[in-house]
């Protein structure tokens, strides 16, 4: 909690991405034109989301092996911030698709996969909310979380590659990275991913702390009422 440097790094990176993402030089391509800048927002958001979900799964595995409720708190809050990024990623992708493909939500395997992926994690939240007992909730939702991640990766990253898809990076289309001759995109893209991951961790950290404080307060309440 004392370590503040990564929060400053996060703010600096995000401001850098916002400024350089809009002002910086980008490769010029037909049709896509300036909308290639969406790579910094949409693609980086989804990569950050996948990283956060992976971290969430790791904490779920840790909970199952060690049985500490803290690990489950972290796993659930990481999943929540990942869902937030996922929804933002869908919106930014939709805006881009509206101008590039002429349709905010074309019927495409990658997009439908993304929607299903978000549904899976919304179901995870619903599952969490349907238990009263904390340990039971933690154990069962950890099991589902691991299962969900194992299904999520094929839906998003493997199945669209096997079929025809409009989306860059699947169905034989190249990603924009292959047009990046001067490393212009990379200079902003990698900081963007790191910045979003840090932001997600920050969000999760705040919520975990709120949860812990509430738990301590509840315990105090219980102990005082007993006396």
């Amino acid at each position, binding site marked *: 909690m004392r370590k503040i440097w990564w929060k400053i790094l996060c703010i600096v990176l995000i401001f850098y991405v916002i400024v350089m993402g809009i002002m910086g030089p980008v490769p010029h391509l037909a049709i896509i034109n300036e909308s290639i800048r969406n790579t910094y927002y949409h693609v980086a958001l989804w990569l950050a989301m996948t990283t956060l979900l992976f971290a969430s799964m790791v904490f779920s595995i840790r909970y199952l092996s060690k049985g500490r409720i803290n690990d489950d708190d972290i796993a659930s809050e990481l999943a929540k911030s990942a869902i937030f990024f996922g929804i933002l990623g869908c919106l930014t992708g939709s805006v881009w698709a509206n101008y590039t493909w002429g349709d905010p939500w074309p019927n495409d395997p990658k997009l439908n996969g993304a929607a299903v992926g978000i549904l899976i994690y919304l179901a995870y939240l*619903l599952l969490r909310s349907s238990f009263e007992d904390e340990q*039971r909730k933690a154990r*069962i939702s950890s099991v589902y979380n691991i299962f969900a991640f194992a299904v999520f990766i094929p839906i998003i990253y493997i199945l669209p590659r096997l079929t025809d898809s409009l989306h860059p990076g699947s169905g034989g289309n190249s990603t924009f990275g292959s047009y990046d001759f001067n490393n212009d995109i990379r200079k902003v893209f990698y900081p963007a991913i790191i910045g979003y991951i840090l932001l997600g961790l920050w969000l999760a950290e705040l919520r975990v702390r709120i949860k812990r404080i509430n738990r301590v307060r509840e315990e105090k309440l219980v102990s005082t009422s007993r006396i």
Partner: protein
Amino acid sequence: MHCERNPTSKGFDLVSTITELQASSRLPVILNEIKTLIWKEVTLEWRQKYALSGMLLYVVSTVFVCYLSFNLRRNQLTPIVWNTLFWIIILFTAVNAIAKSFSQERFGRLLYYYNLCSPQAIIISKIVYNSLIMLLLSGFGFVFYAFVMGNPVGDMGLYLICILLAAIGFASVLTLVAGIASKADNSATLMAVLSFPIILPMLLMTIRLAKNALDGLDWSVSSDEITTLLSIDLIVITLSYLLFPYLWRS
């Protein structure tokens, strides 16, 4: 229930003897347990026939409702619609049939299994048994569906393989989800919400494979779909095997 193992000598034993037993001959013990548990499920099902006959009647009546609903424009039922409709019927049948696999057992009996068998044996036996049930239901459903709605299938062998793969896949996904949902209070809603997104990739692959079979395409065209389906099945079964012990403990 005819468990071959004596509950008093092995069921409530000390930890040391159990670990010793597992260390000495783990695989045969598990295989033996699985066999016994599957046999137990079959006898249980046979004793209360209403469950299975209820599911069969469910398939028949759903197919019949679809038949009557499409009756007005019978000739407009293209093979694609025919195929999709069949798989959606099978999906709902699967969810309904497998949802009860954990909830129908009473708490005391679950505690009894907990003492008697390893959780791996329980989940594998449930998956195998549910696959058998799904095979029976989807096979029967297919025969009745083809009888009522006409049969445009070009390559019967491939279509049957597709039904086989789908039955195993649906059963393995839904068994774990049923285990999760049975722990919660509103398990019927939860079952649908949890299982539909997870089962969707499998359903889409199945529909695509079935479409290839319907058109009578060469088998080499659909080898991609078959391997993908098999690998999804494998992932799901491995995960169920690894994760179920944690679920079982609560």
